[in-house]
């Protein structure tokens, strides 16, 4: 997730990482990680979730990596929301397929 500034709001953080900020802390699926400090601070939260935060000062951006606090890619078996475009740029949400079995096949033209 590319950040142009570090004072992002909790909605943006949730949309980019899948971690929702609640009173009890940052939560994904059944897992919640409590805060030490209020209000929400992306640097502290990234540290507690094991998310790499890489600064590229020459271009004024940061990149936030996915969580690593459990040592596994999946913290929960609940599928995250995925928002991708189809070939014509129309937004498609994985959650729109709820109620059906889904097989996602990744491929590449190289």
């Amino acid at each position, binding site marked *: 997730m590319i950040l142009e500034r570090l004072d992002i709001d909790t909605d943006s953080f949730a949309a980019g990482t899948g971690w929702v900020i609640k009173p009890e802390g940052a939560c994904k699926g059944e897992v919640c990680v409590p805060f030490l400090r209020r209000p929400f601070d992306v640097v502290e939260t990234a540290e507690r979730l094991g998310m790499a935060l890489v600064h590229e000062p020459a271009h004024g951006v940061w990149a936030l990596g996915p969580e690593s606090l*459990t040592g596994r890619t999946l913290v929960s078996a609940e599928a995250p929301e995925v928002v991708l475009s189809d070939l014509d740029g129309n937004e498609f949400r994985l*959650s729109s397929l709820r109620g059906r079995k889904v097989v996602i096949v990744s*491929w*590449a033209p190289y």
Partner: protein
Amino acid sequence: MDMDGAASAREWVEAAGAEHPSLVDTQHQLDALFGVVNVPNVIWIDENGVIVRPPEPGWAAPVQYPGWLASRLDEQVRNAVAEAEAEGREPIDPRRAMTGGQDRDSYADAVRDWARHGAASRFAMTTEEVIRASRPRDPHRSEAAARFDLGRHLWERGERSAAIEQWKICHELQPENWTYKRQAWSLVGNEQLGGGVAGRFNQGPLPGREDEWPFPSSFRDDVAAMEPGEYYPKTM
């Protein structure tokens, strides 16, 4: 999963004539969200939105290449073998590393079994099994994803050298992530070859122009050093 998105995907999607949704993952979200590290990787999700198989190599049927690509791959194999023999090394067929250790024909049957039997299918995992089977992710691998994203951001802004520097770090941090490697190699290789129908498949230095290749490795070199099952681990 290509940064060029619809532009590179369209002809393949249309040729396949699929009835299911075909999406473009220009940012490689599937890597960060699910742990996809190669293509094809397949993820199973049930009706309740619960993952029952995390990403793994999987095929619908034996792979069929279009004629022009099959010819090019054969040529690459011949070149790799000839080069090895000239250097007194044992020739390694790069296809051996990529196709060894898998039972590609049975994957579709497993999917069908799950379609029919749901949670009772022997191929459906419990949530604990899914989490345990998902790819390892330590802080290095989180950083690899961040560096890939940074490289993508820079490349899209025309900052070629800066992007490549980020990708070199990314590849070192997560060497088993083939989509991070092949995406970067493909973008650079395509530009070095000048595009064309085979451009994206050029993922290494051009003969005689090795000093122009900015990465410490290439697809051919990495595959040549692999054992069967290393590129596509057997999970089923």
